[in-house]
């Protein structure tokens, strides 16, 4: 059931097109910075943008930093929103239930598949970014934000770790998408709601007067992966980020599982 669901997610042409389009971003970013850079202007832009030309490792990081705020949550929402609602719409949910597969197994398989896809998205950005970076930019020792030089392989390892953290940071959005998806047979509605939750969280996070509620916003620690590139690694914000995701996931996991197992499947 779990393997079947994973295969289904990774074989759907639409999901593959999303993966392919997202894979283009780090390549485009690298090419643009390599051939159209007009040096001098430091600062501004997402994290690690200024450092891209200095080392191959910074290309995937800049790509992750620029995509974490919109493209990644959007892609995760599309898959998550479709997970149950899509099956309900095309009628395949009925066949699954007729086969007497327990509902809990169906929803758990869908949750696992969507989370794996979310993680695959960010890991793919990192891997493609590293390959493109290695072709376009020098790959020698990596300088962390603390000014400490680490070996290139160590840097590659940290970039992959950053991708895992970024992927896990989007898990809350994925889980919101799945939970909403169990209520409707319109994947579009579920996707839009999940994206709206993510964007609303980012907007609220940007309002200084709402400082008090920031710690409970799902996007509050989204840039925590930057702290991997300090020496020593500053783990505090990363743990907070993961704890935040766990909290949101727990609530929407309960909503998804209980709603799906108790609801009348009419379509």
């Amino acid at each position: 059931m779990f393997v079947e669901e994973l295969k289904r997610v990774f074989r759907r042409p639409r999901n593959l097109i999303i993966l392919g389009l997202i894979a283009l971003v780090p390549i485009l970013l690298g090419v643009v910075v390599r051939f159209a850079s007009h040096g001098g202007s430091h600062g501004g832009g997402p994290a690690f943008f200024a450092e891209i030309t200095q080392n191959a490792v910074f290309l995937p990081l800049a790509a992750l930093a620029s995509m974490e705020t919109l493209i990644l949550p959007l892609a995760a929402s599309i898959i998550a929103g479709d997970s149950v609602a899509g099956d309900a719409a095309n009628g395949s949910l009925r066949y699954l239930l007729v086969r007497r597969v327990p509902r809990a197994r169906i929803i758990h398989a869908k949750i696992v598949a969507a989370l794996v896809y979310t993680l695959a998205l960010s890991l793919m950005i990192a891997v493609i970014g590293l390959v493109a970076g290695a072709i376009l930019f020098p790959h020698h020792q990596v300088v962390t934000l603390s000014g400490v030089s680490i070996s290139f392989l160590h840097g590659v390892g940290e970039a992959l770790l950053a991708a895992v953290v970024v992927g896990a940071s989007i898990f809350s959005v994925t889980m919101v998408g799945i939970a909403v998806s169990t209520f409707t047979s319109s994947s579009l509605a579920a996707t839009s709601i999940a994206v709206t939750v993510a964007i609303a969280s980012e907007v609220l996070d940007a309002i200084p007067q709402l400082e008090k509620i920031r710690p409970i916003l799902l996007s509050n620690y989204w840039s925590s992966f930057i702290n991997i590139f300090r020496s020593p690694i500053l783990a505090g914000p990363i743990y907070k980020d993961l704890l935040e995701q766990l909290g949101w996931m727990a609530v929407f996991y309960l909503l998804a599982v209980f709603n799906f197992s108790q609801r009348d499947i009419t379509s």
Partner: protein
Amino acid sequence: MARWKYRFGIPLVGAAVALGAASLTPALTNAQTPLLGPMSASQLIAAVMGAAPVQYSGQLQITSNILGSDASLLSSVGQSVALPEGTSQLMVYRGAGPNLRLQEVNAQSERDLYVNSAGAWLWDSAGSKASHFVASSTTQSKTLSQGVNPTVMADNLVTQLSPTSQLTVGSNVYVAGHAAYTLSLVPRQTGSSISSVRISVDAKNYHVLGVSVYSVYSSTPVLQMGYQSITFASPSSSNFSFTPPVGASVNTVTASQLKSMFQPMTSPTKPVTLGTSWQAVVELPKGSLTKVSSSLGSKALSDLETPVTLANGGTASLIHTELVNMLVLPNGSILAGAVRSSVLESDAGALGF
């Protein structure tokens, strides 16, 4: 209908539990009052002064609310603001001897100070700039505890302070999970804008864990510096050594150059002070604020100013912050101090305004 209970009731309970945990956890850990042996203020000061140096690593948080409600007025000015406002995070690593590492953690960058027996390095990740301060072999810093009896020093200090300040050991608190005494200083003089200064001291090894300055204008601390977490253990030695990375711009500063860098800071003409202790006010010459106002933009500073009518009928303008008040006199000179505006006005009257 019972199904609805499961479909929404259980997730709602989950949400309530998550929200409750998120809001209560930080409050609970620091809300308890530890039971500690009683100590007088001078005993506590003596213990701090006589404490053996400890090795530790910790996360220091510095919060400033000096501008209070005016902060939003200046938020558009951005990072060039000369007045410290908001929160900054500092990782502190203290090793044996001179070994020290300060790490200022910003969202996308970092500034570091590495100190070891060979000298010091200052690193700024924005623009990858490194400055090397070469240690001179002759100057050796002396620790306070050598040759001075901390109890005598503490008693002297308390005697000096007691006419103007009330020194007490307040209720014990937990700071970063460590039981701590609170030493509180309350001005006996009226007119100060400071209502109290509270210093929390670790009860085990008498290390200062935090300082809060409270203003008469608000109940939240106007300045606060304290450890969010601290571990009393020897940090890894890799924290103190620094080799500038390839491609960084390195600037070497020798001890004599360093001395001359600080020379212009000590101005030849000493500013005039009026009032004593908590009521101390400095009189700054005309034009002292031009540097501040140019970095803020002239409009920003004038937004903070309010006109005040002086005793002789002239008009001065008052710049009010939660901690410091400044009065720009008609002749352009400035009275500034951590005092209420009425003290500044009476000082201006004493000067003939």
